[in-house]
């Protein structure tokens, strides 16, 4: 091969990688928790502080754990999607009110509607740390045995719901 062709060859390889890169989403970070048991926690419910909720309560069901906060703008974006999902009763949704004040969280749900079967408070974000949350919203699909099967980083979009979360949930519910 002629030496002067080398730069062109290098460039062509680079273009191939860039083209493949265009089809990928760099924000899609897989969670190390996928296919691992969901970390156990017991925490007060937002609406009934005296009746703590435990992740163990959900054993035997396929459920969605959705972290949210009243200060989170992207949560407002995903909120209508969750409201629609709640109406279909396809699976229980548990909210994790992350690093938020109870009063603010309650006000937020009263204003925008409450899609959650129950909401758990995580004022200091400790449960969030166990789940590897580094920004709200994030959602976890957890199977009957209490194993995390899917993680959605960022808002639950209509596409993510229809293409990934619901098909997987139906499969797991069988």
């Amino acid at each position, binding site marked *: 091969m*002629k030496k*002067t*062709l080398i*730069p*062109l060859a290098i*460039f*062509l390889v*680079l*273009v191939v*990688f*860039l*083209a*493949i*890169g*265009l089809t*990928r989403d*760099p*924000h*899609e*970070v*897989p969670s190390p928790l996928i296919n691992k048991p969901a970390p156990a926690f017991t925490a007060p419910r937002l609406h009934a502080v005296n009746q703590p909720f435990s992740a163990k309560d959900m054993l035997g069901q396929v459920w969605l754990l959705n972290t949210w906060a009243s*200060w*989170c*703008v992207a949560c407002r974006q995903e909120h209508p999607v969750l409201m629609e999902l709640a109406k279909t009763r396809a699976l229980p949704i548990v909210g994790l009110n992350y690093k938020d004040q109870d009063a603010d969280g309650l006000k937020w749900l009263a204003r925008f509607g409450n899609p959650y079967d129950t909401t758990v408070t995580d004022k200091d974000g400790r449960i969030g740390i166990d789940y590897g949350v580094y920004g709200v919203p994030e959602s976890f699909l957890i199977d009957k045995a209490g194993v995390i099967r899917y993680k959605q980083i960022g808002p639950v979009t209509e596409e993510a719901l229809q293409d990934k979360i619901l098909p997987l949930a139906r499969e797991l519910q069988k």
Partner: protein
Amino acid sequence: MIPEIGHFALILALFVALALGLLSVIGGQQGRADWMALARPGAQALWLLTAFSFGCLTYAFYTNDFSVSYVAQHSNSKLPGLYRVAGVWGGHEGSLLLWHFMLTSWMLAVSLFSRQLPDAMVSRVLGLLGLVAVGFLLFMLITSNPFLRLSDIPADGRDLNPLLQDPGLVFHPPMLYMGYVGFAIPFAFAIAALLNGRLDAAWARWSRPWATAAWLFLTLGIALGSWWAYYELGWGGWWFWDPVENASFLPWLVGTALIHSLAVTEKRGLFRNWTIILAITAFSLSLLGTFLVRSGVLTSVHAFASDPKRGVFILLFLSVVVGGSLTLFAMRASKVRSGGSFALVSRETFLLVNNVLLTTAAASVLLGTLYPLIIDALNLGKLSVGPPYFNAVFAPIMVPVLVFMVIGSFARWKSDSATALMQRLSPVAMVSMVLGSTAPLLAGAWSALAALGLTLAFWIVLASLLQIYRQLRDTVGWTSTPASFWGMHVAHIGIAVCVVGITMVKGYETEKDVRMVLGDTVSVGGYTFRLTGIRAEAGPNYNADVGDVELIRDGRVLKTLHPEKRNYFSSTMPMTEAAIDTSLVRDVYVSLGERLEDGKAPAWAMRVYHKPFITWIWGGCVLMALGGAMAALDRRYRRKSTAPATAPIPGGALA
């Protein structure tokens, strides 16, 4: 109406650029004087149309025309006037228009300052740049039009990203783009020379001042960006090896190699293929940077709204421009006859070694930047490459660069004797080693890295001073020393100043992260900080908590610093405005963190830093740019010259 006129001007510009590109390049190739005559007026018309269009967008911003989608997304009626103007390039579409405006401004400059060049060359160069402009105009008009209207006109705009509401936005992007786009000029000269088939000393001399000018703007742009990140982000850092920073640093590294390689090609007629490939690479990396930033293939703090359509377009554009150029290179480069020969010990050798090292440094930064993408494309998982990789790879490559830089400037062209060179340099080496290894003792703890960094800095400065001394001793009067001689030494001393800054900050910076209530003190680097008050203050489009922090040294209050935490109405992210006290030898830096506790004794998180010599990092960059300006303005570039390819080398100066 005004936005439509701006839009229309942009469409007209597309046709002008297309006509300019085709007619001037073909005219230059076939020697048709009538077509070649179009090149200069064509470039000037393109500039006028672009400037007009740019003015229209600025007008829409200034008058808060929120019916324009781009304005509605990046401005707000409460935004101060200065940022309403600078906000024009605060988002993707407008910054592309700025990119294009810079390109046409360079073209305007070429059309005005090219009287000493043959018409065919000017015609080809302007035509090629016109074709590049076609690509960017198409990109804007198809995927990123800043003039699109909204049918639903919002009452107010979404506001400019608060991080960008800073004087830094006014200067950093224009400077950076000037540099980025400026490498289009040596690129066009290189391609024109390939088309012409004559890669001679004249071609190198023509492109040298342009390459140097682009390089100096890029240097300033990068320095401004680094300084901006330093005071605005509130992390105290000045370089993060973020993909977008790397995207600007890559053309800088290759551009540095290019301006030195051009020197050899001009003086000795050597390294022609090298120079061509460096010119193509520098501009390709500018385009690649644009791709990386705009397509969303990498995660970065400089998040532009990404759109796969845009990514596909730039990738196509990149493939056509770079693929086409490299194909032309492969076809034509072998025809270039090689110039004279040079001995192993000669200035040529050292310049070549440094060019190889700079290119290697660029390649390793590029690899680190693209590695996540490559790994993902090969389905090997997702990962990110952080500063540890870059520091580990980059520093060891740059150390020999700094060593050879001096040897190269001392060595004679063509052939030198190793013993004579040793004799000339060993005193400099000895003195700088002694000074460099004792200086860290003055700063406190001795460390090998600090000693190495300071030794290298002394090595460069002493060598340059020695050469300046000799030059002045051996010549009569100031005027006989060319401006480029001064330019080279000022730039090299700038590197040394920058190295001192980096070494001192890396070696001796101290920081503390503390919780403070009113009256608390914290000490860092011999300074004591006392939090005396925190009050609420209202800005035009934000509310802020402003701290009063007394800076105390030896029991005396030097001044009160005011770090701020701002909550912009349009954003949920609080912004940190660090308070910095700068002096020649150190910065002290206070940034106000989160409010930790309310109530009677509110507590705040505070970060305080002591950063010795940090301003030297940017000061060094300013010196480099100044040196670049002196070299680019050297008289001899303005002379009409027909010197043969291997002209005798006047004097001993490199530049």
